[in-house]
């Protein structure tokens, strides 16, 4: 299957959102919550602040493989993983836009540029790196500036440090674990019923 076929809905092929997508969303939430809260590297400082957050890879690949369902899971699982570490519900809700964009951008980019999730060509790599980097930039700007600053945790002077820390930690984790997951599992995922070619199906 080449990269065109991966995303192309063939003539006569019927694709509709189904129970399998609800299930995969729930399972992604489970993986993301556990990896986010208990991962060997994740160091939850509370309030959703983590240094090096491997769960971002779940957001990235979730969007790429499972479209809008991956984006929904990416937006919701931090509520659970943050909750486990004692983060208040309103803080978790405030993070939703960042989490959403971190999954949405790779999702859109792979579909728009018809990139292969197996990362076979240089172009696929560029689409992957650019999309997750843009998502991370948004997340790294939004989270310290809007959430942490908004809840009064940070002073204006300290915000740049947190922006850089946030971006660096997520970017490295996203690249390392995102690449490993895409390389190891895309071949299987694209043949499953849960794989999403368009937005929801």
């Amino acid at each position, binding site marked *: 299957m080449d990269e065109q076929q991966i995303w192309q809905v063939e003539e006569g092929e019927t694709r509709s959102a189904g*129970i399998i997508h609800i299930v995969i969303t729930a399972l992604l939430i*489970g993986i993301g919550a556990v990896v986010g809260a208990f991962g060997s590297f994740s160091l939850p400082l509370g309030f959703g602040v983590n240094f090096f957050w491997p769960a971002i890879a779940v957001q990235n690949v979730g969007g790429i493989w499972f479209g809008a369902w991956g984006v929904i899971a990416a937006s919701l699982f931090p509520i659970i993983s943050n909750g486990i570490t*004692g983060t208040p519900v309103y803080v978790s809700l405030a993070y939703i836009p960042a989490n959403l964009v971190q999954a949405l951008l790779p999702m859109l980019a792979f579909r728009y540029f018809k990139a292969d999730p197996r990362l076979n060509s240089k172009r696929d790599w560029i689409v992957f790196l650019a999309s997750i980097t843009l998502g991370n930039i948004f997340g790294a700007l939004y989270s310290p500036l809007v959430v942490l600053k908004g809840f009064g945790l940070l002073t204006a002077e300290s915000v740049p440090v947190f922006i850089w820390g946030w971006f660096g930690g997520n970017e490295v984790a996203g690249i390392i674990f995102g690449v490993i997951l895409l390389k190891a599992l895309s071949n299987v995922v694209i043949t499953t019923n849960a794989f999403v070619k368009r937005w929801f199906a």
Partner: protein
Amino acid sequence: MKMNKTILGYVPEESPLYRIHPFVRVFFLLVVSLFPMLINAPEWNLAIIVLAIFLLKYSRVNLSTLKIYVPVSLSMGFLILLSHTVLGGIHPEFYVSFKLFGFPFYYERIVAAVDVYTRVLPMIFLTVLFLSTSRERDMLVAMRWAHVPFVVTYLVAMALRSVGMVIEDFSIVRQAEKARGFDPQGKSIAYKLRQFVMYIIPLFALALRRSDEFANAIVARGYSFTGLREVKRPDYILTQYRFRVRDGLLVAIISLSLVGVLIIRFGLGGLTLEGSLTLQWLELWLKGGAA
């Protein structure tokens, strides 16, 4: 003592908390968590912490389980302090209370840090209270009672179930790795990285296999996905939870207390930092009473 499993631990089966309808408990979390955002006076926020601890004790939660939140609470305090002091910049217009390693610790910034920290802590305590006393089923009952679409409540139920499942898978993979001599204790980052890869790939692979099995099981029991468009279905679980007059009264009290806080804060200008006892004490301690 027989225990009920909650999201964060266990609460005794006979906990008086179960007399209260699950919706009231969710409502309490959502409303009272707003209070620290509206209240600046640290002593009032500390009172919310005391209330949360009282409710934890009343619910017969084993308070030793709260130990796991000590590091998070301390790290939050450190983060806030760092941001307000060392990383807070140079401000000649502020009063220098003392210097540490050459960094000026400004009175205004310490007050702000205390203000923020005493607002963060009750929010953490309220979250811990809710998660230590609520079973997954309570959350579903609360949502269904509030007429949240079934597909959403079902997704939440499955998500919570899958968290438990993934934790189980995670520990099985970890034990299997330990049994093969793969121990991250005191090892390099590269070693730990390799270990993490060995966790995350099986977790995803298992999830993919399970997605088919779960979907088949759901379809085989006649559930059809209709999106947010509701198909009328009976709600048997709700019949086991009665929303009593007492629950209605509690909702009214919680709502009225929110209204009260709003009025005192924005109508009467109360609950502010300026009028607080803590500020007076900080002023005495950090400024030696200097204006």
